[in-house]
């Protein structure tokens, strides 16, 4: 399989994933017994004029497939419907919240890449106390759920030490970074541990290979060996695990935003689910799933770039 065919195939898969995901999200209107109208209003009593608006917007008297098509093409044009709770365009509501979520996930991803990979390489190359303590600490933090990490961080760094504000969004860039630091750490902590462990194992394995040992015995500087021979090969599993964990941050984001009372997409999604505000739930789910799928595709493509065997069709063991 040539690289181009691999890319095309991967892109088609992305489209299929998005189509199925959007179908599930739209279909949620119909899952529960009763009319989609009841699902959209979430059991609220509305005046007839509002119901007429909903009827017209969702084309409720046409066939299911046609309704789906209208909904999807509207969504592609950035029109995700109207929130029944806030009487406002879902897109408008989401616009103000996206910044927080993107900032939080990007901040956490940065922490994972820098600290996780760095710690992994360091632990792999320096056997002894650092290595052992990294292994023990990461075994515990890998099992640390984000919301428990959040509570511990607030207890220690906000209530006891007053280093960071406990809750809420910041005002302006500097205060934003300050407000997002603890949430980003809470979001990153378990992924960071997993990435560090995988990195350590991968680097350890590559460092023990014969060509690396030969290079060491020939007196080639360790810095060069690390860059040219160890990291090149170890990069494949490291990229995969880093990508997968960063993609999974998009789902956990809702938990962390709620724990820290941040105004982001995730917290708003949870609020909307509680209020049975289905248009908002659909809109945010669609955006988050799209982000998740796209990040996963980027990881797969990176994987193919790093390991030519993947796109050449032979299975990498």
């Amino acid at each position, binding site marked *: 399989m040539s690289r181009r065919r691999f890319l095309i195939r991967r892109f088609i898969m992305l489209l299929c994933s998005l189509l*199925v995901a959007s179908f599930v999200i739209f279909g949620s209107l119909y899952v*529960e017994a009763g009319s989609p109208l009841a699902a959209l209003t979430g059991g609220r009593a509305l005046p007839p004029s509002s119901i007429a608006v909903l009827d017209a917007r969702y084309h409720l008297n046409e066939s299911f497939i046609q309704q789906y098509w209208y909904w999807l093409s509207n969504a592609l044009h950035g029109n995700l419907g109207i929130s029944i709770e806030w009487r406002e365009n879902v897109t408008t509501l989401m616009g103000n919240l996206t910044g927080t979520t993107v900032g939080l996930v990007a901040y956490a991803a940065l922490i994972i890449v820098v600290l996780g990979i760095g710690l992994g390489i360091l632990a792999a190359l320096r056997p002894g106390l650092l290595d052992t303590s990294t292994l023990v600490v990461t075994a515990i933090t890998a099992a640390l759920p984000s919301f428990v990490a959040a509570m511990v961080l607030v207890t220690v760094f906000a209530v006891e030490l007053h280093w960071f504000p406990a809750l809420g969004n910041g005002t302006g860039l500097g205060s934003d970074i300050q407000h997002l630091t603890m949430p980003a750490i809470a979001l990153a902590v378990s992924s960071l541990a997993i990435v560090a462990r995988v990195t350590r194992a991968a680097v350890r394995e590559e460092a023990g290979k014969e060509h690396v040992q030969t290079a060491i015995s020939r007196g080639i500087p360790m810095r060069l060996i690390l860059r040219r021979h160890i990291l090149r090969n170890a990069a494949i599993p490291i990229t995969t695990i880093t990508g997968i964990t960063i993609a999974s941050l998009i789902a956990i984001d809702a938990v962390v935003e709620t724990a820290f009372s941040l105004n982001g997409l995730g917290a708003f999604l949870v609020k909307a689910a509680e209020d049975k505000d289905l248009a908002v*739930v659909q809109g945010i*789910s669609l955006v988050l799933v799209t982000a998740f799928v796209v990040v996963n595709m980027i990881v797969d493509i990176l994987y193919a770039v790093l390991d030519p065997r993947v796109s050449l069709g032979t299975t990498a063991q």
Partner: protein
Amino acid sequence: MTAIALRRHRSTKLRHSFAVLRRSFALLRQTGPAGIVSAAVVAVATFVAIFGPWLAPYNTELPDTQLAFVGPFGGHLLGLDFEGRDVLSRLLAGAQSSMVGPLAVVVISLGLGVALAVTTAWRRGFTDASISAGLDILFAFPGILLAVLATAVFGPGLVAASIALSISYVPYVARVLRGAALKERGQPYVAALEVQGASGPSICLRHIVPNMMPLIVAQATIMFGWAMVDLAAISFLGLGVQAPAPNWGVMISENEVGVLQGYPLPCLAAGACVVLVVIAFNILGERLFERATAR
């Protein structure tokens, strides 16, 4: 099977179950000290999950707001929560709802996952290709998001969340087990059984699945940990188990006020329960996995 063999089969049944027990202990010993400690934690958690409501010394739901956030005293080893209820009692009683959900998720997703893995490995060809492609597409929905969507439609609760989570776990399970099933399918004994005229379903159910059992058990153990974190997160968000019912996820969220007021004990105690049990399941699962794949 002749009648004599049948009778002997029945009489050895008891001895057989003892042998299974002995073998499980032998396996446990091989998982090392960390594995044994983890197994002990899992055993205690299971015991508490079954008998917790009877072990709880105080009423778990009756509030007494005058005693909100009072520290440990007298018979209240872990103090009182934001509504003046005994924290230890709520932890003991809450083990049930905290562990039943993950159990359901593991059973459902493993049932579906094993069925899909064995079917794809057995049929291969077009069936394999189409099911695997379908699972890759299903991979697109992160568990927590699907659970939130489900609770928005069906209303908050453990049932909707658990089913949604089970579905989103199926691709992971099927992917891991499909490889093992394919390897088993290629074994000479399977070909021998086919030559003898055994039917496909019978070979799969009576030979391939039992031979994959060590891997399936290891996978179940690891997944229990994931499911526990995800379901606790959903209850923490207020979309799973509903307060005032005792549950570890619920307790973390309802006592967050205490954290901000400088009294984190009730909140962190519930968090510690989740972390402890999850770590135990993770370590045990990893050890079992190593043993299952080493063979």
